[in-house]
């Protein structure tokens, strides 16, 4: 498997997982009145400011044969977690967490609270209100979360290097591949991959900004109601 398709596979897995676990976390952060909420908010935002090598270092320790996660994994599956694709997915989920959760929080918070009150008074429980009101009205945020966590995972380097090492076909992602090629003076190949990542990053950002522009909102709500 080449590095590019490996990166895409990793990014897709991470984006899907983040959407699933990001929604309940974002819901709680958007609607909870708990006083200590800022603690969880800080934890969620931590990967934004932490050097990837720091995050990768602790992920490696945790996943190593003597780390808690590593021990658990060996007990469950008979092999370690470090330097595997699964380990890479886990570390990337942590690393890209804020990129999924923050757009979700922002879009959940933007939903008019009166609509939620109206839904409850019409007999809807929290789950039904989420499914029928919050989710459709937050669709741009959901798409943004999905796309940003995908794009962010696609380009990560430090965490992957720490946790995954550089095993061709298993953990060698495209950003590591570029680094390798530069090291061995293969500038042409490095340039091709780098240009591709640049084009993808630009396309993704264009998409995100377009989705979140107010001018597109009517189209979104039409689509959401289908």
């Amino acid at each position, binding site marked *: 498997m080449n590095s590019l398709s490996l990166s895409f596979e990793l990014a897709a897995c991470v984006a899907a997982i983040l959407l699933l676990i990001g929604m309940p976390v974002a819901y709680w952060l958007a609607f909870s009145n708990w006083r200590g909420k800022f603690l969880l908010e800080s934890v969620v935002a931590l990967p934004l400011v932490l050097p990837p090598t720091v995050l990768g270092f602790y992920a490696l320790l945790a996943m190593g044969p003597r780390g808690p996660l590593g021990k658990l994994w060996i007990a469950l599956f008979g092999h370690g977690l470090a330097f595997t694709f699964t380990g890479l997915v886990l570390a990337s989920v942590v690393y890209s967490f804020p990129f999924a959760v923050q757009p979700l929080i922002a879009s959940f918070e933007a939903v008019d609270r009166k*609509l939620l009150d109206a839904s409850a*008074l*019409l*007999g*809807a429980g929290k789950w039904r209100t989420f499914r029928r009101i919050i989710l459709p*009205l937050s669709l741009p945020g959901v798409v943004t979360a999905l796309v940003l966590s995908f794009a962010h995972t696609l380009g990560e380097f430090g965490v992957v290097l720490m946790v995954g090492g550089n095993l061709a076909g298993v953990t060698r992602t495209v950003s590591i591949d570029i680094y390798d090629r530069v090291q061995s003076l293969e500038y042409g190949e490095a340039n091709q991959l780098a240009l591709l990542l640049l084009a993808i990053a630009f396309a993704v950002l264009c998409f995100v900004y377009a989705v979140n522009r107010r001018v597109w909102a*009517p189209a979104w*709500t039409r689509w959401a*109601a289908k």
Partner: protein
Amino acid sequence: MGSEVNSSALVASIRKERRDAGTFVLDVSFEAPPGITILVGPSGAGKSTLLDCIAGLVRPNAGRIAIVESVLFDSAMQIDVPPQKRRIAYVFQSLALFPHLTVEQNVAYGLRDIAEQDRRTRVEEILEAFRIANLRNQKPSQISGGEKQRTALARSLVTEPRLLLLDEPLTGLDAELKAAIVEDLRAWNTAKRIPILYVTHSREEVDALGERVIAMDNGRVVSHGAPMDVLDAPRRKRLAQAAGFENLLSATVLELREPDGVMRVRLGESACEIEVPLAHASVGDRVQIAIRAGDILLASQRPHGLSARNALKGKILSLEQRGAMCIARVDCGVAFVAHVTPGAVRALELAMGKQIWLVLKTHSCHLVN
């Protein structure tokens, strides 16, 4: 729904402290039988907080809320039924229509756990009753203000609630449209007798709908009864303004005429003297007099042969056309606001600066303590 449920009254006694903007305490206790009970009072009186408590959106500090045998909240027994289980319909001032759903989807939102056929019939009936069947596939952003209000009412009523809360749902509509919606609501209420609590500032809505009025001020119920009793003898100044008394004048008592049941007062610092109903006052006391703009007559000459006792000479300061009504400001030493029809403006040739006579019936002058 059994009729025994529909014939139930709301019994509430609520205490709620709010500290978000100074300390405000809502402390009320009342009963609302089936039919329309109007809640009036100046803004900040606690009307919306009261509705929020009844609906379960705000938790009272203490009290008890019940629709006869069914307890919704009881602080002593630690009962607090969540809003989605209270079967109370609440139409907000903002209406809160779901923007991504059509009129029909909005109306059907609260109907579930019933057979598809049944659901369709009920949605159909209510769409017809509130004259919005032709808008079923439109989104809220595509329909007019009045249509939105009808949709919000239909959405709440289709669920057959035990209680209906309306927080100024008809604000911003013109009088004709308002009257039509009020008529539809009244017709619906004749068929399904449930208690309706209706917050409004509009005198027209009070007259059109009200069977009972609860007047609130500063978190308390200050008056409770038939609309005439509560609104037509205002005892509190802020309430008078909220209830649509456009003219609120301070005056000095000059003379008591007990046999006639009247007293003479001088308005403000002016030379104007008028006769008002006798009150517990002595000569020299300052009193407040509230007069509705619609109760003031205008005459182009000094009137005679009238039973009205008060005629004041003045000059028109301004004329303003608003809908089917003209608002005249008249200076008689103190300024008055009077409402006249455009026909009267033409017949009397009213214009700015013109000399005019104001005619006031003694009993149109209400004393505010």
